[in-house]
């Protein structure tokens, strides 16, 4: 069985033994308490280096969305696809595809949660994080 790897280990953490365990990750600043999605060596607001890694809840609300009908080079999913910007309950915004929902049924403000799908290639199985609508 191929090893499953995260599309970006600095933004998305996946337990190799138990793939049901996954998290969006980032940092929080111990000085000004803001949250940062993804890699950071210092706080983006105050520039302090006193930052601590955090796992995000993965819960968000839909900030905005679009139906991409002309996909960029490198996109390996189906086209068109829905690109969504979710606002995490901790604050940061995260761009990802929304899956499992019709475009016409979406509206700004609905609740989302993070999930992932596997993109399987000859050499590697890549876990790419996605949004889905919270039931």
């Amino acid at each position, binding site marked *: 069985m191929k090893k499953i790897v995260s*599309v*970006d280990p600095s*933004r998305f953490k996946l337990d190799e033994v138990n793939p049901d365990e996954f998290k969006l990750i980032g940092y929080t600043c111990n000085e000004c308490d*803001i949250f*940062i*999605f*993804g890699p950071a060596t210092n706080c*983006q*607001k105050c520039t302090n280096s006193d930052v601590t890694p955090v796992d995000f809840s993965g819960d968000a609300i839909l*900030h*905005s*969305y*679009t*139906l*991409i*009908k*002309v*996909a*960029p*080079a*490198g*996109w*390996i*999913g189906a086209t068109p*696809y829905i*690109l969504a*910007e979710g*606002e995490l309950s901790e*604050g*940061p*915004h995260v*761009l*990802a*595809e929304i899956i499992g929902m019709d*475009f016409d049924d979406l509206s*700004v403000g609905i609740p989302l949660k993070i999930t992932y799908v596997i*993109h399987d290639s000859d050499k590697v199985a*890549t876990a*790419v*994080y996605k949004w889905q609508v919270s039931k």
Partner: protein
Amino acid sequence: MEQIRINRKVRVAGVGLHPFGKFRNKDISVMAREAVVEALGDAGLPWNKVQVGYFGHVYYEGMSIGERVLSPLGLTGIPIINVENACSSGSTALWQAFWMINAGLYDVALVFGAEKVPSGPVTVTGSDSPDRLIGGDHMMGGYALRMRRYMSETGATASSIAQVAVKNREHASMNPNAHRNETYTLEEVLKSRVIADPLTLFQCCPTSEGAAAAVICADDVLDSLGVSREKSPEIIASVLTSGDYNGNGSDHSAFSPYRTEPAALIAYEMANISPDDVDLIQVHDAATIGELQQLESLHIFEKGKAWIATQEGRTSLSGDRPTNTDGGLLAMGHPFGASGIRMIHETVLQLRDQAGARQVDGAQIGVSQCSGAGDVTTVHILKA
């Protein structure tokens, strides 16, 4: 941020433009050289008077393109700097040249930019970036996210925002240098194919090729060079900012999604003017929604009101806030390295009363604003 002060007057003595469009069999350096020669001729200066050159471009077309552009004019040994700063590359080149003259290192600078943008969706990251798999790297997708958010917070409709494209195409119909100068009806704009809903094709700037150039000089050397002060508008503000912390790591908001607002506030203070003093405006309308958000960030209109002003015709040539008078990115097209200098070209023509059918009567002060990936924003203010 402590304000940098202008302590030496700098003027735009000459401008040149290679038409924007598609020129498949023409090398980028040939296009850029044509714009440079035109700018030098417009200034009435020989090439050997130029003391430094800044060249804006983004896509890789070989190394040291700036040198390749200029070497046939004569090898004078001046410093030539190649500048990459996304869609603001050309205006960043101007910013660098302006402040070098202001600092007294040089008296005469050449600013030029060119690009051959490949067809298809524009991306920011490299081809091996995870963002390509995640699907978030899509320039027009980003504008579409801002547009939907703007609509949800202001009540603007997709149709009202599309009016920006109709207006800019009308302006371009008076501009033979535009990539697209045929006019469209609102219905045609809305019915063009969807790129990233709610943005349709005619609401997205074309991927274009072209070049632009400007010769800028210290005011105190104009007389000795024999350059006309009257036809050389003064640069009364030159500001460049990059991304700052906005609270959420995203710029897809309804209001002030770019760094334009802080840059504009610095520029108005530097120029000692208010937004009400501005007679014409060139903004970064890579998509229709961009023009509205930039106008609001420049404080030309209140937040959430630019779409109404557009409906009322206030941003048209005959309106009180004429915007993107040459057609903007939506009609001129967007060769990244050239666009920021193209805005200066149009502003100079307008301030000289040389813009022909699209002339804004009595224009005295013009603002040019350019945004780019990395939240780069430039604001330049010129005065007749």
